[in-house]
Structure formats: structure tokens, C-alpha cells
């Protein structure tokens, strides 16, 4: 597998392809150790070690979902309270206006609904989806990322990025291939 290097005006970064998760993890650790920060790994299925190696620990998801749940719950209950005591009070089968036990069910459902919506759209937001166009797709081999192979990309934006040195670094990590990623 040859590395064909041509001068390109704009470069997104360099991409290394690995056959096994182990190689990828080792590679990530090495690259991080050398001080690279603008690094991204691509795997066909979630691998915790990779995230750890990339220093991804905390996620905002849970907080988003909590907020969603609280909004939904309070909103749902307040709606019923307002409707039954202010909007149009009615004597329904002799039951009290504020029949809180009856209001629990819709409240619960609203809580779940809002929380779920926050979870999904929150995930999109945090992942910057939808993003149909992305530089990495320019690399033909990248199709393997959604199959069986593992990729590492060091972005040109990284201060330590140096075309030659970085390529050298990557090729030492026993990749099956290293490729340029055009913007």
C-alpha cells in the first residue's frame, strides 16, 4: 500500500487506517502522548478504551435530559391545574377541581416525552448532526469505518501538526494505510 503525497492547498488532516482496535488504541495513546489534541478516532462500533484514550470522559447528555424531564413534568401538571381551576372550572361527577391523583398520569407522560426529546435532539446537537458533508468522506477507504476498520485523524488545525512529521509519526503506528484528508 503506497503513500502518494501531492501538494494540496488546503488540508483537513491526515488519516491512518488500522485493522484492529488494539492498534488504534495504541496509536491514539501515542499520538496523545506526543501532545496532539486535535485528534479524532473512527470506529465501526463503540470502544470505551478509545474514548478514554482520547480523554473523553464526561458527557452533557444526562444534564440535558434532566432539564427536559423537569420542564415536561412541571409543564404538564401546571396545564392541568390551570385548566381545572382557572380556565374552565367544571363539576365533573362531584370530584374536586384539583383532582391531583388524576393529574399524575399526564404529568408523568409529559415528563418522559420531553426528556426523550431532549435526549435525542441533545445528542444531535452535541455531535453536530446532521452533517451530511464531512472532509473524512473524501477518503475512499473511509467507507471501511462503518464496516470493520479503525481510523485515526490528526487535524491540520493542531498547532503541532506538521505535514511530514505527522505522517511519519502515523506510519510508525503500523497502519494499513495513511491518507490525506482534503477539506
Amino acid at each position, binding site marked *: 500500500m503506497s503513500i502518494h503525497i501531492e501538494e494540496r492547498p488546503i488540508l483537513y488532516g491526515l488519516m491512518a487506517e488500522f485493522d484492529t482496535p488494539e492498534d488504534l488504541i495504541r496509536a491514539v495513546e501515542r499520538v496523545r502522548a506526543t501532545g496532539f489534541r486535535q485528534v479524532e478516532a473512527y470506529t465501526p462500533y463503540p*470502544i470505551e478504551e478509545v474514548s478514554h484514550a482520547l480523554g473523553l470522559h464526561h*458527557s452533557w447528555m444526562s444534564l440535558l435530559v434532566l432539564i427536559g424531564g423537569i420542564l415536561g413534568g412541571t409543564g404538564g401538571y401546571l396545564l392541568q391545574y390551570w385548566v381545572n381551576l382557572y380556565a374552565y372550572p367544571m363539576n365533573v361527577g362531584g370530584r374536586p377541581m384539583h383532582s391531583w391523583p388524576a393529574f399524575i398520569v399526564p404529568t408523568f*407522560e409529559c415528563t*418522559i416525552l420531553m426528556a426523550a426529546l431532549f435526549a435525542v435532539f441533545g445528542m444531535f446537537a452535541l455531535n453536530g448532526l446532521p452533517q451530511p458533508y464531512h472532509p473524512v468522506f473524501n477518503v475512499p477507504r473511509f467507507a471501511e469505518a462503518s464496516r470493520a476498520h479503525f481510523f485515526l485523524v490528526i487535524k491540520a488545525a493542531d498547532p503541532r501538526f506538521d505535514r511530514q512529521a505527522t505522517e511519519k509519526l502515523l506510519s510508525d503506528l503500523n497502519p494499513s494505510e495513511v491518507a490525506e484528508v482534503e477539506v
Partner: protein
Amino acid sequence: MATIDERAMLPDGLPEKPYRPPVLAPGYTPGTVTDKISSVVLAKTPRWWYVAFGLSFCVMMLFLASVTWLFAKGVGIWGVNQPVGWGFAIVNFVWWIGIGHAGTLISAILLLLRQEWRTSINRFAEAMTLFAVACAGMFPVLHLGRPWLAYWLFPYPNTMGLWPQFRSPLIWDVFAVSTYATVSLLFWYVGLIPDLATLRDRAKNRVSQIFYGFFSMGWRGSASHWHNYEAAYLLLAGLATPLVVSVHTVVSFDFAIGIVPGWHSTIFPPYFVAGAIYDGFAMVLTLTIPLRAAFGLQDFITTRHLQNMAKVMLATGLIVVYGYGIEIFFSAYSANRYEQFMILNRITGPYHLHWILLIVCNAIVPQLLWFRKVRTNPVPLWIVCMFVNVGMWLERFVIVITSLHRDFLPSSWGMYRGTIFDWGTFIGTIGLFLTLLFLFIRFLPMISIAEMRALTPGSRGEGMETPE
């Protein structure tokens, strides 16, 4: 690919050690898994698919016809009357909703319980859930006297200054079912995204590239994607779990809140939820067993899966049977004349055949599942499941009709019979269900590829199991 002879893999000299078949036949790599499953979608459409789809489409047309007639004439074309104001429509509603429980349950609860065997069936089960809920969701609208006013059940500001009546279980239904439908859809879609990306990258022609590309939203499988994705997926599972329990609880409230003897009972929520899971799993098996053969997916949906689902059915089935028992006990113990008569009438009255059949289908036949031979052997297992499907429909029929047809005042007692339009609507929804299902298995991966990859040997996926 032919079925693996599991006996062949028995380690010698250990016959007494109970053998647990793997959740994924050996010899698979992420690559082969991907190719195998995506090929189902990307390969040429098999001829039998057209036949099956065509048939179910015709049945769906029956539904359309019945509903058109219904809207033109009114619910009077059904068998409903005084005193039996609810008939097939509500029976079907509860039945479909029940079926719609397995999917989310498998995906959510089993995920939280780290039951990795769920992986190969959850996608399919979720899809089934969606379609079942779609079928169920229509009945509450269809059974209205004035269906075109169904939107009055939603809280929205209007010029009448009127709002829904939040004390009514029917309003709870609106909230529960619509929430359940939405969350199930999201859950299913989120799970699909990585696989859609896979298909996008495998697709040959432009159209399918755009189709899958559009819905995969530019998924790249980057570590940070996976990071948030996993969190979101887990949280959704966490939310779906109480939801799935709540939905059939709320459905049971439709009856439990009423004062009708045979409805007004505190046992209903647990008993309905259990029944729903029971029925749901039965339906999953009913559909997976043939499909797994059709697409030769025995390596992914192994005997292990059949076994486990059968076990779940057995367990929930027993809870349901307990429910039947407790109902009878309650009525006897309550010293409530109406309750006592209701049970007596249910068992010995004009509808006693329905009741007996229901006991046979739900309580007696499923006891076969105690035997491993039945659990592991697709054909008898499938037959048992069919019994349960029928039995659970009968259960709802018995609850709705026998409770209503003879309630408090003997002067108002009556009988109920479904008309051809009742049957047309019911069978029609089965057609609708199958139509959607066939579209699904044709155009979407019916097994979660990404999660299967994680199960392959050597992968460092989570919850990965090293095979014996």
C-alpha cells in the same frame, strides 16, 4: 448459510454441564457480520418478498374498505349496542398495544440488564412495536361516533374556551400512547443511525445513497459521536423502561377506573403489563422464527434467543394466570354481589366458551414451555406462540364484553356479536401491520449491525462475551 450443528461444539466429557448456545455463531468478524446483514437489504429483492408483501397489502385494503364504510355509515355497522358500548375496536386496541410492548422492553430493559442476547432481536422487535402501536393507535379514533372530532382530545387553545377532561382515562390514553409512540420511534431511529451510515457507505446506486445518507445524518462513527450516542441511548433506555410499564398500566386504567364489575379492579395494572409482555414476546417469536429461516439468519438469532424469549413468556404467562386466579378470588372474597355474579357469568354464562378457550390458550398450552425441547425447537415453539396470540385477544374480549353485557340492572342486560365490519377492521389492521413489517425488513437492517460487530470475537465492544 446453514445452521451450525450446536451439538458438535459440546466439549467432550462434560455432558452434564448445561450447554448455553452462543448469541452469535462462531467464525464471524465485524466485516462478515456487516456484509451478511447489509446484504439482506442491498441484495436483489427475493421473489417471495413480493408475494408476501402483495398479500399483506391486499389485506390492508380490506381495512381501508371497512373504515370507509365506517365513516360513511357510523359505528352502527359494528356490533356495539346498549349495554355493550365497546366491542372489537377496544379489544383490538388493547391487543395491539400489548404486542407493542415487547420491542421497547427488549431494547430498553434488557439493555439496562446488560443482556447481550437482546442485540440480535431488538431492532426487529422495536420495529414491530412501532407498527403494532400504529395499528393500535387508530382504533381509539375509529371507534368514536364522530371520529373527525378526535382532535378535541388534545389540549390546545381554541375559540370554545374548552379543554380535555383530564380525569378521564381516555385522555390518559392519549398522552400515554402518543408519548409511547414518539419515544419508541426516537429510540428505534437513534439505534438505526450507525447502521444507516453503514448502508450509506455500502449502497451502490445514487438513490439509496441519498436515502440512507439523508437519514444517517452524516454519521461518521467518531469516538466523540459514540461517546454522546452511548450516553443518549442509555438514557433513552432508562426513560423507556418506566414508560413501557406505564403505558399498559394506563390502558388498564381505561377499565379499572370504571365502576363496571369486572373492570373496577386493582389487579389490572400489573396483570395487564405482564399480559402485554407475554403477548409481545409471543408475537416477536411468531415473526422471527419464519424470518430467521427465510433470510438464513440462524447464526445471529440462535436457539439461545428462542430459549430466552420462551422463558420470558413462561414467566409472564404465569403472572397472567395468577391474575386470572386473583380476579376470581377477589370476587369471591369481596362479598360484592355484582363482582361475584360477573365472574360466575364469565365462566358459566353465554360467553363461557370464550373464557374456556382463553384459559386453554393462555394458561394451559404455554406450560409446554417448561420443556427445553419445546423451547429450543422452532416449530412447536411457534405453535405455542400462536396460541398465546389468540388467547390474549380472547382475554381482552372477555374483559370488555362479558363485563359489560350484564352489569348492574338485569333489565339492561344484552348480548354482543361482532359484524363482518368488525372482523374486516380487525383483520385489516393485521394486513397493515404486515405491510409495514415487510417494507421494514426489505429496506432497513433488521438486526443492529453495529451492536453485532461488538459481539464478534476479538472486538473490544462493550458487554462482549468470550464464547466457550
